[in-house]
């Protein structure tokens, strides 16, 4: 077991109800995955916000570099035809 003075950071994903995807809720500190789950339960679902929790240690997430936002994201901005906005959505489709 490695002993570090501070607990590592974990990212918390919560599924609010069945049928929805897990969403990022926030982060917290915990010594290991089990503790991270328990802490997430207390910090993020104490008002009945969820039915399922994922935790992942923050260092395992590879994030895009904000400096590269130009080439990463801007080319998509002027391509409206990539959005499915030219279709009528039936009322029954709730989560789109």
């Amino acid at each position: 077991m490695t002993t570090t003075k501070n607990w590592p950071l974990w990212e918390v994903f919560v599924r609010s109800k069945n049928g929805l995807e897990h969403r990022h809720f926030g982060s917290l500190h915990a010594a290991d995955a089990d503790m991270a789950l328990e802490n997430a339960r207390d910090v993020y679902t104490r008002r009945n916000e969820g039915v399922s929790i994922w935790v992942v240690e923050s260092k395992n997430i590879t994030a895009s570099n904000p400096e590269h936002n130009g080439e990463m994201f801007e080319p998509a901005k002027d391509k409206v035809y990539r959005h499915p906005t030219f279709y009528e959505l039936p009322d029954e489709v709730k989560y789109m």
Partner: protein
Amino acid sequence: MKKSLYNYILGIADNSLILGQRIGELCGHGPSLETDIACTNISLDLLGQVRSYYQYAAKIAGDGRTEDDIAMLRKEREYVNVLLVEQPNTDFAYTMARHFLFDEYHLLFLTELKKSKDMTLAAIATKCIKEVRYHQRFSSDWIRRLGDGTEESQNRMQAAIDDLWTYTDELFHQTDADKAMVSEGIGVDVTKLKNAYYEKVNTVLEESTLTIPESKYFQKGGKMGIHTEHMGFLLAELQYMQRTYPNMEW
């Protein structure tokens, strides 16, 4: 019968009230933000549970007193919680050891109370048991972490267990109200929980590489209203608002 049932309910409720107050003292003072919230959650669970018990007790007493009067306005000698739950939050190991030693009992107790002939008590037990299962999971987890952790954490957890062990036997003492309610099929025979309790506790202690205390000398008194020196201070804080501003509400 009415008097016995009333006293019996207080015997259950006072344990959770006093433990809830104790663990609630960590609000804003927990060792980390996450454990602080967890402890405060547990405190709120316990205080929520006692509302059901005291409401029921108030109904049975039928003398105009409310749940708040019963919870907040008794004198020290009138509280019948076990000595274990009033012990102070000496350090986090101590706090978790105290909780764990009560949680294992609480789970066994509620499992039996669910079968009570008294429908109200059975319903309260059914509602509480899920919460208490989580409390036991949380506290036993910390026994393992600190027991099987660093030299420092193990020393502290062992000291806490050794210290609090003397208060465990009282959990299984029967009061007059207990005996009366057991014979009515309403109460739980706590003497029958003892073996299962020590089995469960000892298993967790062994998993945590802790030594099971051998002491055979046990403290008692709480169930008869005779408390340790810590109780007065706890009640002073618990009752402050009602004593200072009688009948205040929010």
